[in-house]
């Protein structure tokens, strides 16, 4: 039984078959189309989460009282498995690109919000005080102290966000889509096409790896001051 499980290509396919399929899909343009779709969904979601999450995180740190009221709600939304939102998002935003972008966005948003908030809570008060003694304007302090301070926290969020935005996009695709790697995996699995499933997984791994390399580059560029 186990032996059969290990050999039968139905269950795990074979590297040679996967390579062949990758090649033929590349030639058809099918592979690129699906990969590109997932890439666009995940990166738009990630970018949107960054754009919305960072200011909210800053606001959470600045308006402490408002945050004290809002935080329980934020935390329960954060704890809600975002996967469960996918059907709703498909009803609201359709089966095309936008619903997957929103899935990726909602999965990553809280990471930025909570990380930036946490980063600002650990901010060096003396630095702020020193700038206050020199009567620095709020804009100057934001530019010179606050934003550089949260850069490492933003990079940490991106590091987690790369994987999570792919999760969001792919979960959306699994539930209803007409393109994307999640859709391709789902379609292949429906036909018991294990090779197709693995091709999808390989491409997701490639996307995640490229994302991680880019984040590592950013980190090397911007976090050098951390001794």
């Amino acid at each position, binding site marked *: 039984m186990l032996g059969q499980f290990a050999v039968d290509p139905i269950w795990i396919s074979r590297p040679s078959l996967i390579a062949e399929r990758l090649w033929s899909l590349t030639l058809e343009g099918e592979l690129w189309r699906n990969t590109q779709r997932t890439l666009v969904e995940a990166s738009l979601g990630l970018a949107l989460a960054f754009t919305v999450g960072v200011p909210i995180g800053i606001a959470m740190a600045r308006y402490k009282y408002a945050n004290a009221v809002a935080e329980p709600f934020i935390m329960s939304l954060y704890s809600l498995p975002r996967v469960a939102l996918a059907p709703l998002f498909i009803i609201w935003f359709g089966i095309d690109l936008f619903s997957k972008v929103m899935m990726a966005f909602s999965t990553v948003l809280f990471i930025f919000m909570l990380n930036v908030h946490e980063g600002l809570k650990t901010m*060096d008060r*003396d*630095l702020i*005080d*020193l*700038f*206050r*003694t*020199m*009567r*620095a304007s709020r804009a*100057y302090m934001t530019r*010179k*102290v606050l934003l*550089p301070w949260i*850069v490492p926290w933003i990079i940490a969020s991106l590091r987690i966000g790369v994987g999570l935005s792919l999760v969001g996009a792919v979960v959306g695709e699994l539930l209803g889509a007409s393109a994307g790697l999640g859709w391709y995996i789902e379609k292949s699995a429906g036909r018991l096409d294990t090779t197709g499933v693995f091709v999808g997984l390989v491409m997701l791994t490639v996307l995640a790896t490229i994302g991680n390399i880019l984040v590592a580059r950013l980190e090397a560029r911007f976090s*050098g*001051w*951390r*001794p």
Partner: protein
Amino acid sequence: MTKPVNPQKLDGHASSGHDVPKISLRNLSVTYPSGDGTPVKVVQDVSLDVSPGQFVSIVGPSGCGKSTLLRVLSGLLEPASGTALVDGNPVTHAKDRVGFMFQRDTLLPWASAEENILVGAELARIPPQYIAERVKSLIGFLRLAGFEKNLPHQLSGGMRQRVALGRLLAYEPEIFLMDEPFGALDSQTKSAMGRELLRIWTEHRRSVLFVTHDIEEAVTLSDRVVVLSARPGRVKLDVNVDFERPRDPKVLRKDIRFIEMVDRIWSALDLQPI
């Protein structure tokens, strides 16, 4: 040679009586909230005037509220009672620039030595065309040449303090609040920095409030040394240091009046057993 001179003569315009003091603390008390909620008094009923151009040192046991006094003067902290005035105005409405050098080095960790000094010049509203030149001259002056592109963690402790001093000087304050600025330096560098500070002070005649643990340093540099008692800090002793300037530390150290004064300050400090 160090001869005692008339303090009137030493201060020139400073102590001529009718002048508004540059810094004036009146019956100042400061409390902090403690762990169990009850307020702890850390400074009690301190009154202290600093004349324009006067160099005053504050010494006192650790935790007696020296840093706290400077924080009140820079407007960072509200006193529980009493007033803190700069040029007769409440500190929060002071027209003069008040420069503060913190006890801890507070450089921007992601910014180079040069960029850290630049901050002071920018906040002093120095016209942009002069800023680069100003920063460059400070780098040279503070013997930081060759290290201007280094980040703070790539500098030695003494260099970091010099960068912080550079930022303070770039800000061109009318009042210098310095909280153990040379505390982390070896004694040679410390006395060199002291000499530099005196040189700047002689040139510009700013009011300086200088916190230190080093009594000899205090006596060497200042016109006046104020001793605070253990917490809650009160003024325990206020001595005029009327040795003639310029002072040569090597000569001064052997002067019997210097030794006596250091001794007097030592005995005024009630050192707590640890």
